[in-house]
């Protein structure tokens, strides 16, 4: 075991963790917005809107994240009309390709988490609101959404942790995130165990933080 290598690679890996966190936070924010939008579409009665949202979540939950990144990065890059369109400004950069793939992926899972949360709301609560003469719009925003968010916290915490580990795939499209830098150090030192232990430790610590933050939120908003 080469402890010197573990110590000397630690600052480099910590630096790369910033990229990992950046990828994670941006895609979680975009994904949450997408998730809310699509979950509302999922509970809509109109079959076209409903089926469209279902198709989206079916596709992104049904294919591996790695395949999605490759389709967006290498696949779209092969198409001439994409390369000559304004989209290429974003798709040319591996960073944006990763963000797009991660956001769409976590958006699909988030929409399912929120949908199931909406469906667990007891009809009695909505009826109580209606019988008090509250507008259905206000019922939706003041009763349904807050309850759905609280209900989905444990499942959403899981999704954040899965997404954190998912960002390691960014290294496959040349991004130097935590995993990318770990692989780079290994390629010059030929010592995978030491470097992956340090990198794994950092992932574990981040998971610990996320887990406790969600637990804190669950306690704070319990009823």
């Amino acid at each position, binding site marked *: 075991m080469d402890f010197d290598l573990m110590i000397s690679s630690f600052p480099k890996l910590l630096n790369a963790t910033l990229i990992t966190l950046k990828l994670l936070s941006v895609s979680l924010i975009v994904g949450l917005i997408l998730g809310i939008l699509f979950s509302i579409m999922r509970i809509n009665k109109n079959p076209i809107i409903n089926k469209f949202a279902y198709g989206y979540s079916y596709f992104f939950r049904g294919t591996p994240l790695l395949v999605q990144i490759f389709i967006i990065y*290498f696949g779209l890059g*092969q198409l001439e009309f994409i390369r000559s369109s304004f989209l290429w400004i974003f798709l040319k950069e*591996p960073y944006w390709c990763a963000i797009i793939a991660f956001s769409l992926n976590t958006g699909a899972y988030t929409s399912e988490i929120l949908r199931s949360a909406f469906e667990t709301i007891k009809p009695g609560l909505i009826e109580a609101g209606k019988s008090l003469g509250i507008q259905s719009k206000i019922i939706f925003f003041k009763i349904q959404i807050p309850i759905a968010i609280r209900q989905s916290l444990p499942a959403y915490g899981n999704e954040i942790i899965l997404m954190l580990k998912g960002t390691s795939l960014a290294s*496959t499209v040349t991004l130097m995130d935590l995993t990318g830098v770990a*692989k*780079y150090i290994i390629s010059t030192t030929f*010592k995978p165990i030491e470097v992956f232990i340090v990198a794994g430790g950092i992932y574990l610590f981040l998971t610990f933080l996320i887990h406790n933050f969600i637990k804190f939120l669950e306690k704070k908003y319990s009823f």
Partner: protein
Amino acid sequence: MNIIKKFSLGLLISLFLTISANADKIRIGTEGAYPPWNSKDASGKLIGFEVELAWTLCRYIRQQCEIVEQDWDGMIPALIMRKFDAIMAGMSITAERQKAISFSQGYADEVASLAVMKGSDLEGISTSEGINLTKKTGAVKKDLKTLTSALAGKTVCTQTATIHQNFLESGDVGKIKVRTYKTQDEVNLDLASGRCDVALAAAVAFTDYAEKSGKPVVLVGPTFSGGAFGNGVGVGIRKDDTELLKAFNKAIDKARKNGDISRIATKWFGFDASM
């Protein structure tokens, strides 16, 4: 319960049998994604210069061989961890790698070159035909200077953990934006898509891609050798495996004398890259 016991016992026995069956075979690791050195055909069979050469060398060593596929970036760790016994994967002999493993004598020369898509402004750069970085003469320094200003601000792509990456990061051509990929195939794809302004690899890797894909990839600048580019491509072997190293060196001698290496090299590269 009984079924599970029987099943796991059977599994253990078959595992043991496969391990012992492989014990006297020489396992040779290759990447299978660096044509024409080593690649795979449509059916997934490993082919290429080194695959054919490996079988030839095994005949001279008079031992059974097995060719194992391994991702490039884990090649040396996999050798050290005994996933196989020898590397034949277009791996150049460099001082950095020799700290971790031994190399046989070189069997072929890899000529490195930059490549761009037709129409790039780098097409016009004028340098000498080839430069050797071992002796940094005035002419070499002048060419490096030309390259430094030509590559400034460009995205230069290359495969990870290669001599090409080492060269680009050595500072010989200034501080440039280097993007590294897991395989050469991916470098080629991004060169064609325009994400990479210029790429560095074995010249044959580009000419092979241009020929097979029909994409207008052209070589520019000088060919590189010496220095960070090492001293030819050899068989990588664990440091404590001196017997196997001797056997490979002898086999390469024989194969060279009988003209096997030149013949196989000419077949795959279109020219004699043997050494």
